[in-house]
């Protein structure tokens, strides 16, 4: 018991000079939580917000009620999920390399988190809209977004639908349900709530899905979103990707003494679940449940995806300065690709050889595609866009002062 007030400062379990240590992270057994009714209330969501939905156990088996809930997802669909994740990872590797070669100014990987976007997106329907952050490329992969367009954006080249306006990875696609990404953290969260309100008002049957990182839950817009979702009950899924880090800052600085981010959401009266984000089956199951609930008009739901940021924050970051080098290896929830692969091998739907083969094939395809994309321009070898494009789309119609400035520019 303290005697005088002293401040606390949350610390990660280990720093670079220490061994990774995740002993404080409780990993509940797979399969122990029920599938709640679609109209789950925030009060009844308590065990889901403080616990963790997991389907794949350590042996690689799919167990418990949530496994049953998605028993109809067949081998083909699971293999597609595996391929989505593998594709994502290869693209991350290739574009990271491209950045190292100076072919793009910036890149940012989602390594270790592939299951979340890949598994979630496959449960959405056409017309649904994601409001992603910069680390949700996996949604685009699973949505079937043309990879050359995705890469073109990263190279800011002729294939970039944004004509070089945005930083690499800040994609935008109305058709593939991917809202224009802001560099300002958090802003998309309340926008998703507004979009979902419009969905409800127009009765078009579509829903919205907001995405945010654990660090950015500290933002004001996270609060606004939870609050307004609780007040108006629009069809929105509020996803929180807790990957333990926000650049160099440990997740404890964003959570404080709160048990989980899901519990924080529950404080607003929004039902919330915490889910093993490295378990493709758990992701698929909870996503399917959440989408069904939301589409049926039971109001908002929050999901905390528990995962680990394996890569650096971005190409501007070097995590060895603030966390143990092999912390990712110690992560108790494993690697999402390995876990799904092991499950499929165990159940006889896949084999190690086919996996190795598939890996090589995906890599080759992407390398070939990448060459084609790079021919359309890279950072070191650009095919310039007219500078006048700067003035395009500031407004729907160009006002006189912009016309004068464009002339001043020489166009």
């Amino acid at each position: 018991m303290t005697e005088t007030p002293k401040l606390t400062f949350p610390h990660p379990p280990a720093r670079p000079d220490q061994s990774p240590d995740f002993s404080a992270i409780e990993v509940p057994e797979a399969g122990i939580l029920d599938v709640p009714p679609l109209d789950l209330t925030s009060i009844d969501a308590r065990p889901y917000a403080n616990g963790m939905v997991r389907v794949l156990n350590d042996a690689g088996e799919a167990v418990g009620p949530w496994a049953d809930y998605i028993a109809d997802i067949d081998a083909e669909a699971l293999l597609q999920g595996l391929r989505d994740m593998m594709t994502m990872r290869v693209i991350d590797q290739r574009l990271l390399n491209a950045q190292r070669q100076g072919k793009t100014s910036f890149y940012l990987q989602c390594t270790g988190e592939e299951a979340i976007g890949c598994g979630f997106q496959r449960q959405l329907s056409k017309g649904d809209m994601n409001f992603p952050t910069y680390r949700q490329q996996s949604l685009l992969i699973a949505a079937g977004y043309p990879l050359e367009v995705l890469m073109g954006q990263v190279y800011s080249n002729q294939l970039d639908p944004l004509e070089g306006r945005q930083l690499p990875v800040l994609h935008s696609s109305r058709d593939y349900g991917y809202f224009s990404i802001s560099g300002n953290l958090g802003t998309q969260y309340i926008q998703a709530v507004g979009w979902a309100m419009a969905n409800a008002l127009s009765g078009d049957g579509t829903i919205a899905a907001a995405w945010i990182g654990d660090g950015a839950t500290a933002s004001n817009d996270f609060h606004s979103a939870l609050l307004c979702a609780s007040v108006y009950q629009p069809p929105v899924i509020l996803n929180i990707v807790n990957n333990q880090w926000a650049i160099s800052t440990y997740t404890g600085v964003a959570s404080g003494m709160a048990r989980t981010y899901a519990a924080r959401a529950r404080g607003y009266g929004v039902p919330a679940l915490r889910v093993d984000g490295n378990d493709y089956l758990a992701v698929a199951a909870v996503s399917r449940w959440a989408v069904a609930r939301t589409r049926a008009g039971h109001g908002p739901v929050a999901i905390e995806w528990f995962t680990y940021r394996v890569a650096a924050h971005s190409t501007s970051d070097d995590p060895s300065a603030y966390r143990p080098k092999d912390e990712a290896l110690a992560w108790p929830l494993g690697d999402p690709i390995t876990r799904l692969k092991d499950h499929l091998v165990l159940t006889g739907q896949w084999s190690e050889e086919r996996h190795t083969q598939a890996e090589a094939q995906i890599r080759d395809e992407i390398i070939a595609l990448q060459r084609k994309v790079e021919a359309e321009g890279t950072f070191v070898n650009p095919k310039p866009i007219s500078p006048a494009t700067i003035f395009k789309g500031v407004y729907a119609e160009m006002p006189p002062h912009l016309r004068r400035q464009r002339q001043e520019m020489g166009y």
Partner: protein
Amino acid sequence: MIEALRDAMDVMLDRDPKVLIFGEDVGYFGGVFRCTAGLQKKYGEERVFDTPINESAIVGMAVGMAAQGMRPCVEVQFADYVFPAYDQITQEAARIRHRSNQMFSCPLVVRMPTGGGIFGGQTHSQSPESLFTHVAGLKVVLPSTPYDAKGLLIAAIEDPDPVIFLEPKRIYNGPFYGNHTGKSVTWASHPGGEVPEGHYSIPIGKADIRREGTAVTVLAYGTMVYVADAAVEQTGIDAEIIDLRSLLPLDVDTIRASVEKTGRCLVVHEATRTSGLGAELIAEVQESCFWHLHAPILRVTGWDAPYPHAAEWDYFPSPARITRALHQVMEA
């Protein structure tokens, strides 16, 4: 002006099912200035509703709705309370069209009462217009008559891009000529108070020459148009008074034509002087009319201090201050 604004929203709610009105106390009650009175009753709660007290949430929701295709027209209770929403307005609403290369757009209106003159103290009196005119992607509008208020608000709601709509609260109920001890005038007895029924709009980007003249150009907007009127009347100087109405984009053509004619220019606004809109007006005028200018362009503005409660009239740009400046510009 309140009725004109309400009328504009009424017309648009009626014409376009995508138009939505929301903000703090705007629903059941109809707004603390009564601008939305009766609209919830008429159009239902799904079209006109109350929000939590969070301006960034109000605008953030509106951004999402607008991107989806709705036409939200939201109220911020006082312009002084817009700052929590400043990020959503300047980094989001203003940017979404451009950054998505027109895949998404953001047709929304943020209405807010602005300016002093009601003894509101520093948090019910500010004029933040220049904090928005610096932001590419926004339009900024500030009417000075009920007629303009209705026509410009309709134009703002119909505009494909985000519009900051500032309402000079001192003239909500009638013109104000700067004499706070005088008797108050209502719009009923003023030509600008006549408001046609139904739909009409006034293009954003066009100034209005309120008074033609040849001696000096006075650039003003909102309440200051009337205070300038009064000062010009007092001096007998043949000033041309331009009511800007649209602060971004500016009607540079009208301004230039006038200053080329008069060769002198005075800018009047209530906002804090340094980096106020007056600075931009002066920069623009001196650049485009330099060879016509007979005297330095002066500005009469609020002081570089918070708006005081009790000493409000010492802060407010008075007819006396404008008169003095007019003489100064004419003498030079």
